């Protein structure tokens, strides 16, 4: 990969994970992908009446990280957080209902696609202003430390957000106070349509930046579930002991920035054309690994059918939900 002198990634061996873990990873990734794919039609029909930032292609990051977290650990996200929310265990029905602007949405229709929250599974919220969630997650980790809880906070943000100053303020803050926070830098190579090299020097080196601040830094192949999961699980051991860590996951976003459409014709992609995205596709590749055992095809097919049905059910139920009562407009300004 020549995009920005990205250092080569030393991948974890697939054999490092037991089959049950691989299956769980496939299940989580497929839920994210299937849900978003089924939602495309709703966007095109203007039933999802807002931006949607799909994470198709990036599922290994959400799934690999969240499957390494404990239920008591927290996660937070950004504008592209359907996957983070679902991977942490967020309710699919309430997510879709929110995207469709319905009363039973996870924000009662006040947030929409860019505001995912499900506190019952410790997904504490996602905020779309770039970098804004990073200090908040740092504060959640500060609270855990002050309350002497054994809980990590993982926060997802993109390569674009990583150019916001508050990210560096936050990492410095976390390093100074030894906070249990995992910074997941989801590098999909483009800020909207702007390439990495159009935004930074060819000598830009995030490893030196973050380790220079006193944090740890790990680079993972964000197109490979096993690599993300294995490296995250290893990093979390020290994160729990107060060693804040940045895991940079280099991954491919298949769709356009904020619409579920392929935008290769726009001409900005230099290293991730459709055939390359397909070749490195985490969902397809993990399925291939699982399917090496001919006995397992039926098991995988059953899983896929179940997930497709789960998504259809969530979307159909959400579509039948009522819209919010207009009187709720004035409610909940304050707690």
């Amino acid at each position, binding site marked *: 990969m020549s995009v920005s002198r990205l250092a080569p990634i030393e991948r974890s061996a697939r054999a490092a994970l037991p089959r049950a873990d691989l299956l769980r990873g496939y299940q989580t990734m497929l839920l994210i992908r299937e849900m978003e794919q089924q939602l495309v039609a709703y966007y095109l029909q203007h039933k999802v009446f807002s931006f949607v930032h799909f994470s198709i292609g990036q599922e290994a990051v959400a799934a690999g990280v969240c499957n390494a977290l404990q239920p008591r650990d927290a996660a937070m996200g950004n504008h592209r957080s359907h996957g983070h929310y679902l991977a942490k265990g967020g309710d699919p029905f309430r997510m879709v209902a929110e995207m469709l602007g319905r009363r039973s949405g996870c924000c009662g229709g006040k947030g929409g696609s860019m505001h995912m929250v499900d506190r019952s599974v410790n997904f504490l919220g996602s905020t779309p202003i770039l970098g804004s969630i990073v200090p908040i997650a740092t504060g*959640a980790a500060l609270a855990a430390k002050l309350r002497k809880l054994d809980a990590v906070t993982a926060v997802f943000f993109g390569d674009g957000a990583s150019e916001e100053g508050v990210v560096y303020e936050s990492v410095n803050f976390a390093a100074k106070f030894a906070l249990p926070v995992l910074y997941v830098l989801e590098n999909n190579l483009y800020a909207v349509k702007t390439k990495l090299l159009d935004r930074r020097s060819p000598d830009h080196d995030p490893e030196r930046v973050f380790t220079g601040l006193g944090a740890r830094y790990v680079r993972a192949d964000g197109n490979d579930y096993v690599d993300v999961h294995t490296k995250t699980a290893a990093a979390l051991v020290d994160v729990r002991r107060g060693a804040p860590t940045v895991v940079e996951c280099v991954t491919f976003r298949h769709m356009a920035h904020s619409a579920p459409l392929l935008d290769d014709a726009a001409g900005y992609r230099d290293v991730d054309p459709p055939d390359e995205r397909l070749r490195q596709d985490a969902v397809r590749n993990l399925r291939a690994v699982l399917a090496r055992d001919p006995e397992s095809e039926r098991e995988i097919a059953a899983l896929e059918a179940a997930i497709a049905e789960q998504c259809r059910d969530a979307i159909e139920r959400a579509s039948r939900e009522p819209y919010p009562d207009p009187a709720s407009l004035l409610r909940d300004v304050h707690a």
Partner: protein
Amino acid sequence: MPRSLSFTEAIRESTLQCMEADARVFVIGLGCSYPNGADGTTQGLGTLFPERVIDTPVSEAALTGAGVGAAISGMRPIVVHGRVEFALLAIDQIVTQAANWNYMFGGGNPVPITIRIAVGRQWGNGPQHTQALYGLFGSVPGLKVVIASSPRVAKGLLASAVTDGNPVVFLEPRWLYATREDVPPEPYRQDLSRAVVVREGSDVTLVTYGDGVVEGHRAARRLQERGIGVEIVDLVSLHPVDHGTIAASVRKTGRLLTFDTTHGSFCIGSEIIAKVAQHAFDALRAAPVSISCPDVPVPTSTALTEAFYPTRVDIVERVLALVGAPPIAREALSFEELHLAPKYDFSAHG
């Protein structure tokens, strides 16, 4: 028995009592561990609560965001910004994150954070250290915005802010830091959303807040000598504004004067006058009057700040005109009165 405390001592005492009462309360901000801690407002607290007084890197956005994150995770942070200009470096966290949080997540997501911000005039510190920006904070739904006018008010409001359960912007006029008042030693709270009639009068309603209240008292005493009764409404809350208390006073006096120590455009007084015009127009016997600063950045030289900030002399002059009384000779204020923070004692003046 109440004892005389300065404004900063009252803030410190309230903070200490909040920390004693609730282990979730912590203080975070630049310099809050210094021996004179944030102008004395956090003095000694770090010794009493070493884990709960967090002096931070010079990173306003991160420390404010950390406060937001801690607040949604079971803590009750008091974030301290020594000047409003530094709070502006964290405006995303205050305005876009904290203020929206509970609403945009559909309720059930409280952000119990208190954001202390020192504002306003101070000797010779000019355009980037003495802005007020009351209207900016007042215009944001989701924030509760209060401003204390005296030590006693500061202590009660801060306790209410910390225990409220919502983001509260607690504005502190530096100009009042050396003022004194008899303050009860026990913890108490003051309503975050209610204006208070701090002086009764029958001829004119003066609506002001923060450091304007001192000027109002001084002007009102002078006018009383002329037989003119000024009723002073201390707003206390800039969001929400307690329009009911204002309207009731205007219905009593028939005349309205607002006094802001900030720029006239989009100032708090403009908001007051607009609402009175809409809801109590019939009670007005004369056009409302607004006293405020000119729409220029805050200057530095005393020759310019003297022309910039309105004083009690302006209030006296405009009230006389408002009630149709003959003008009196314009009182000359001393350098100390014009340019040094008042050591006013609210208890001594009743």
